[in-house]
C-alpha cells in the first residue's frame, strides 16, 4: 500500500534469510496453500518449514496540519507466520518408519513446538542484529513498535498435522518519500534501494529486485523546489500553500520560480527600494 510498507516487508524477509532454522525458506506474502505430494522425493523446497512475512492492515491518523497527507506512514502490522508439519520432515526411514527433526530429535508434537519457539527467537535476533545490513534497514523503516502479539495455532483436523506460530508486530513506519524531494543517500529508504540493487546483482533468489528498485527510483525522482515538496507532502492546493506563506510570488503565474534577479519594493510614503541579487 505504500513504499514504506514495501521497504519494511522486503527488508524483513531479506534480514531473515539464512539466519534461522528455516534457512532460505522465507516467503514474502505467500498466497497459495501448502501441499505435499505423495512421492517424498519430488517435493519442492517450499514444503520445508517456512517463515511467511506479511504486512497487514494499518491506519494512519491524519491531523489537521496535513489536509491531505497521502504520504503519511502511520501504523502497520508486520506479521511473521512460522509453520512446521510432520510432513515437512524429510527422510522417513523405510525400514523403521522413524523420522528426525535434527540428529537425535525424533518428530513429536513437542519437537515441532520447540522448533517454532526457536525460530521465533531467531527472528528477533536477526532483526536486532547490529551486523545485519538488512536488519539495519528494517529498523530504520520501522520507527517504533507499539505492540507485539504472539499467537499459536494447530490444525489436526483437515488431514495434515500442522503447528504454527504467528508473531504480529504493530509498529509505526516512516512516511513515504515525496516525489521530487532530493533524498539523503544515507537515509534508510535510499539504503533500501541500494541494497535491492546489490541483492539482485548477487545471488538473491528474487531477480526482480533490480526492476523494483529502478521503478521506485523513477517514481520518486526529481529535484523540485522545497515549497513544491511541502505542497506535495501536505496535499495542499496552490491557494493553501500561499496562505501558509510558502509558494511562488503572486506575480509568478507559471510557478517557475526563477532565481531573484532584481526586485522593487514600494512602501507608501517612501521612495521605492531596489533590490539586486
Amino acid at each position: 500500500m505504500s513504499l514504506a510498507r514495501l521497504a519494511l516487508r522486503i527488508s524483513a524477509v531479506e534480514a531473515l534469510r539464512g539466519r534461522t532454522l528455516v534457512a532460505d525458506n522465507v516467503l514474502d506474502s505467500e498466497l497459495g496453500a501448502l501441499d505435499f505430494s505423495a512421492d517424498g522425493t519430488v517435493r519442492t523446497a517450499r514444503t520445508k518449514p517456512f517463515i511467511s512475512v506479511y504486512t497487514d492492515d494499518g491506519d494512519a491518523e491524519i491531523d489537521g496540519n496535513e489536509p491531505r497527507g497521502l504520504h503519511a506512514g502511520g501504523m502497520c502490522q508486520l506479521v511473521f507466520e512460522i509453520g512446521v508439519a510432520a510432513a515437512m520432515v524429510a527422510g522417513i526411514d523405510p525400514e523403521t518408519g522413524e523420522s528426525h527433526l535434527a540428529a537425535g530429535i525424533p518428530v513429536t508434537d513437542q519437537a515441532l513446538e520447540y522448533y517454532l519457539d526457536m525460530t521465533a527467537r531467531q527472528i528477533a535476533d536477526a532483526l536486532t542484529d547490529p551486523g545485519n545490513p538488512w536488519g539495519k534497514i528494517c529498523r530504520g523503516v520501522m520507527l517504533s513498535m507499539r505492540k507485539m502479539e504472539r499467537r499459536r495455532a494447530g490444525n489436526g483436523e483437515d488431514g495434515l498435522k500442522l503447528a504454527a506460530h504467528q508473531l504480529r508486530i504493530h509498529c509505526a513506519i516512516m512516511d513515504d518519500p515525496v516525489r521530487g524531494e532530493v533524498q539523503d543517500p544515507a537515509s534508510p529508504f535510499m539504503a533500501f534501494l541500494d541494497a535491492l540493487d546489490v541483492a539482485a546483482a548477487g545471488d538473491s533468489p528474487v531477480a526482480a529486485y533490480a526492476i523494483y528498485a529502478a521503478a521506485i527510483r523513477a517514481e520518486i525522482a526529481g529535484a523540485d523546489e522545497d515549497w513544491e515538496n511541502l505542497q506535495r507532502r501536505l496535499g495542499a492546493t496552490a491557494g493553501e500553500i500561499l496562505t501558509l506563506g510558502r509558494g511562488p510570488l503572486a506575480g509568478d503565474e507559471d510557478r517557475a520560480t526563477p532565481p531573484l534577479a532584481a526586485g522593487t519594493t514600494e512602501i507608501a510614503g517612501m521612495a521605492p527600494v531596489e533590490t539586486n541579487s
Partner: protein
Amino acid sequence: MAGNALFHDLRDELVAEVDAVMEETVQLYFLANGKSDPTRPNRTVEAPLRTGAEKTSSAAAGNGASWRMRIAAGKAELSIDMARYDGPQPQAGDKIRALDRPGQPYWQVANVDDRSHTRLVLELDQL
C-alpha cells in the same frame, strides 16, 4: 476373531470378499514416542485404503480469520479386516506406507477406531 453367531460368519465372508477386490498392500510402522516400538514389530497388511479429495483450509482450523497460512490436504482411512488381522494394536502416532501407490506415500495415524465389529479403522494424516 471369535464369533459364534451365524451373522459373524456371514460378516467375515462379506468383508473378505470386499477386500479381495479392494485391498492394497500397506506397510505398518509401529512407533512409540517417535521411535520404533520394540514390543510391536512392523509388518505389512492387505486392506482397503481410501483417500478423500484434498481441500484448502486455514492453518488455524476454525480460528482462521487472522491467519494467512493455508494448507491443502485430505483425510484418509485404512480399514483393516478384524477377522483376518492378528498383528499388534495400532496407536496414534504410528505410520503407514502405501506400497502399491505411485510415490509410495506415507501417512501418520491420527485416531484408531477399534469398536466396530467388522473393521479396525485408522484415521490418517498426510506425511
